[in-house]
């Protein structure tokens, strides 16, 4: 039995009304009843049931053992990250303890990681890392002698120049991300009621279904280095992630789904769940989802070049997998050649001093790691205090995600600008046992003029497309271009949405798209945040950071079909 669009709308809206998720906000009351304001105090907290974690003081003591062992082993520099991460995906939990010691001897690094938290084990790991660095440095010396006087000297010299890490001030201290309610101090009962109430609310939306994720992670991480640094940070990250899907019973494979903006992980505790607008925001997005789902759905076949509007989520994904990755200093200096790849924004010295902007003057990007961002820290993973800094200023590339190792390649540029040479605090180890590498923080693309809504961006479009709800982006190895597969593609004719399209994907050249192709940016109301997951290293590890961007109007994009094979 098929269901008409009219039936679909009528039934779904009725379901919303009966669920009380409209203006009457009965759903909010429903949620409120389930939240900790009414919790039954007789129930035990999550923390009280779990295995106890070592105290920060124990981690500090072990960290000092490691740096002493590395120093005695002759490391030019060594550092350690050690700690515990407790995570709750109610009701399941995960507790991971671990450490990673990094040692440098001349131009060679060595890394050793483990999970056995004894003095002997940590000291042995530090000695092993140091020994590994000594052997690697000797190997490099042999390589150097083999290529002395040949063309290779140039390549090796580049490596040497960046291995002379800039010094960092000795840092000592303790920092905790601000939290009102420690998620592990919440009772098990409250988590059950939270997840049950989200589930019930989301189940009551008729043809519209919802997904709700609940997650918190609390990590205590100690960093110590042979330069005398010793810092302890406790970060709490997490929150609710909500999305809404609309489908029809006769075609379950055709689904429209949106994440609910304004939710997601932040640097906050359980208080992030105590929002009074959950039901209202769900209802708003449910209505939007139903509206887009109700458009006629057809297979795309009009291959060609078109103007395209990205919503903020799509723009965040495209920027995140192209321009932002190209600003990764590890890529730009060649540290990732055999792994995640290269960057088209090289050589760095030429890119930053170019008189012609690399991108449209509309494009301005910054990065920072301040609260309430989920990336917030007081010190990065080598003891540098991160700062909010400009990456792209009106189209000009002015900085990269740098670390103590890679910042020296910008020394001349900083000198010309009268800026002290320092790392921007972008070294990130996803876990204490991970090799730390450069990564973006909380990256933001500046919005356009006020009043530039998505409607305003599509208004003058005679025939084009609006991409909504995020996109999967496949970038080329040098990030010079790629493809994107949007979550939702809407055909626009004479400024109005006329259909949803299946089997669409788009090809782009990064420079062309963000240099001459970018026509306008949406205003602040169009800003959306996407988590950008990338892989780095060999073996690879996932690095994640949020990127917030406005909607964008771009011209001349190749729009193609996924199911036609050339």
């Amino acid at each position, binding site marked *: 039995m098929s269901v008409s669009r009219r039936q679909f709308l009528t039934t779904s809206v009725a379901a919303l009304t009966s669920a009380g998720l409209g203006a009457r906000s009965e759903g909010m009351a429903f949620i409120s009843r389930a939240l900790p304001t009414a919790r039954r105090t007789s129930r035990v907290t999550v923390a009280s049931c779990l295995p106890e974690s070592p105290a920060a003081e124990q981690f500090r003591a072990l960290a000092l053992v490691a740096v002493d062992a590395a120093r005695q082993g002759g490391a030019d520099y060594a550092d350690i990250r050690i700690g515990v991460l407790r995570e709750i995906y109610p009701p399941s939990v995960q507790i991971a303890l671990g450490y990673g010691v990094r040692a440098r001897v001349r131009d*060679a690094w060595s890394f050793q990681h483990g999970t056995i938290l004894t003095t002997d084990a940590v000291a042995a790991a530090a000695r092993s890392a140091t020994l*590994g660095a000594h052997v690697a440095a000797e190997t490099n010396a042999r390589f150097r002698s083999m290529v002395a006087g040949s*063309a290779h000297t140039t390549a090796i010299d580049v490596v040497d120049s960046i291995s002379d890490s800039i010094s960092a001030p000795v840092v000592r201290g303790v920092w905790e991300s601000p939290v009102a309610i420690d998620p592990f101090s919440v009772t098990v009962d409250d988590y059950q009621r939270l997840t049950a109430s989200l589930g019930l609310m989301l189940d009551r939306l008729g043809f519209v279904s919802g997904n709700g994720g609940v997650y918190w992670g609390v990590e205590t991480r100690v960093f110590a280095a042979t330069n005398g640094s010793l810092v302890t940070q406790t970060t709490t990250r997490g929150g609710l992630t909500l999305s809404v899907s609309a489908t029809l019973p006769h075609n379950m494979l055709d689904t429209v789904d949106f994440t609910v903006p304004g939710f997601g992980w932040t640097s906050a505790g359980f208080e992030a769940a105590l929002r009074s607008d959950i039901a209202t925001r769900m209802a708003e997005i449910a209505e939007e989802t139903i509206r887009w789902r109700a458009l006629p759905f057809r297979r795309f076949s009009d291959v060609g070049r078109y103007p395209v509007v990205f919503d903020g989520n799509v723009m965040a994904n495209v920027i995140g997998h192209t321009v932002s990755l190209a600003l990764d200093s590890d890529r730009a200096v060649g540290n990732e050649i055999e*792994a995640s790849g290269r960057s088209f924004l090289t050589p760095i010295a030429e890119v930053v001093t170019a008189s012609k902007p690399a991108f449209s003057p509309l494009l301005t990007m910054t990065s920072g790691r301040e609260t309430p961002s989920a990336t917030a820290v007081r010190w990065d993973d080598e003891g540098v205090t991160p700062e909010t800094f400009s990456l792209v200023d009106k189209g000009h590339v002015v900085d990269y995600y740098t670390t103590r190792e890679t910042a020296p390649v910008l020394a001349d540029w900083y000198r010309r600008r009268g800026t002290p040479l320092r790392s921007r605090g972008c070294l990130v180890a996803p876990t204490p046992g991970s090799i730390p590498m450069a990564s973006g923080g909380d990256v933001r693309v500046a919005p356009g003029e006020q009043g530039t809504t998505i409607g305003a961006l599509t208004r003058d479009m005679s025939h084009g497309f609006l991409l909504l709800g995020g996109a999967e982006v496949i970038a*080329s190895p040098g990030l010079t271009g790629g493809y994107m597969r949007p979550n939702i593609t809407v055909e626009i004719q004479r400024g109005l949405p006329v259909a949803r399209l299946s089997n669409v994907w788009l090809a782009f050249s990064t420079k062309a798209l963000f240099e001459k192709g970018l026509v306008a940016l949406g205003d602040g109301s169009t800003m959306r945040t996407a988590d950008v997951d990338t892989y780095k290293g060999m073996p690879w590890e996932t690095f994640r950071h949020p990127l917030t961007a406005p909607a964008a109007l771009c011209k001349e994009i190749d729009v193609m079909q996924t199911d036609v094979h050339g």
Partner: protein
Amino acid sequence: MRETTVVPDTPTSPVLSSDALTTLAHQILDMTTVDVASVTVTHRAAGITRVSRNHVRLTDSGDTLQLALRLGFGGRGQIGIRINQIDPDTLHRAVQYLERIAHEQPGDPAPTPRSMPLPSPPYPHNTSWSDGTARALSLDRHGVAAAVVRPVLEAGLTGTAFIGVAAESKMYADKQGACITGQSTDAEIAVTAWDPDSPDGPASSGWAGAASRSWGTLDSHRIAADAVHLARLASHPIKLEPGRRTAILGRPAMAQIVRAMGRDYDAGATLMGFTPLSDHKLHDRILDTRITLRSDPNDPDGGYLPFTDYGDPRYAMTWLEHGRLTNLAYAPRFAATSGVAQGNPWPESLRLTAETGPLLTVDEMIANCAEGIYVNRVADIDMVHRKSGLLTGVTSGGCFLIRNGKIEKAVKDFRFMDSAYFFLNKLVAVGQAERTAFGYAPWHGEWPIAPTIVPPVMVHDFNFSALAENV
């Protein structure tokens, strides 16, 4: 009475022994009286050396441990805890947490057929362990790094290399008496070399690699020599118009493509209409009749542990025989409800072979090609259209124009867009299947990637859709 399947231990193991894991399993499961309880322990050790531009960039070694304990009361939802410490107090508290929480989960407290683990099945033998590889974890990998970089330097080239050795010990046990343990090892060497004077630099490189459960079978000198040979050929590439062309796909290219085919054999996804096999019935011809596709935990060129993290057995299966669909992978519980005698998870490890007709080497394929492209390796694999198996990726580590039976020129890398279900029906020639390395390949999961044993192939009308630098 608990049944235990144990792989013989070795004195050189850098990971927890089967005995240690079995003792641990009994210790944990004896702590709880809950009927539905299972535990998986995975202990991994790895040693890595990365060479970047003729320079040892980094060495990395260490181990990780993870214990996943799942517990449930009757038909109530199961819950889990993951920890990485195995001292008695931590284990006791973890069990206590689960028991307390599991009681409060919604659902019927009485056991249901769905809530109970399936009976303990017979498991195939495990053959994926090598003492030599385990010993290599404590060897000086820098010696190997020097061995693979020296030929690159002597050839006047610049190079990168990856040398990785890994060992894993895994155990699954449950309250119903199942207890299976197994250990595996793996090793990989990959070298990329390029002419520093070539205007494209590392974008016109030669890549060579090998992977094996057994470290001793890896020939670092040959790998380096192959990378040098390809790098010399790859220098100063020309631009060539994209389009449909005859292609010779080397083993490293085929491995990346074939690895992406495993999920297509998942019965659930296929029956729901999601895979290239959805419109076919068993015994339909899917690919060229020369092609057979199998998985075997005891494959002599790269077996794998014969069980999953949830204790499900992995049996030897033939998915395609002479091009015809012979089996789909039914997850054990789905198999039980679908009347399928033997469940099996979808294959992560595959062997694609030609069992009829002559087997040609890549050189022989080139000699028999009037005009075409030889692709040594592809990278950045992504699924474009799952229903047709349409993949995209870029050529990487050697791409050459063939004319009149010879390599004429190196060409700039292409993006391709094609499906194995299309191009393996346009097969011209096929070679001997061997396991190959993947190099950087996060699109295929964690390193080390399950063995993929493939031949080089020559096919008509392969779709080179664009120049890689353009998209």
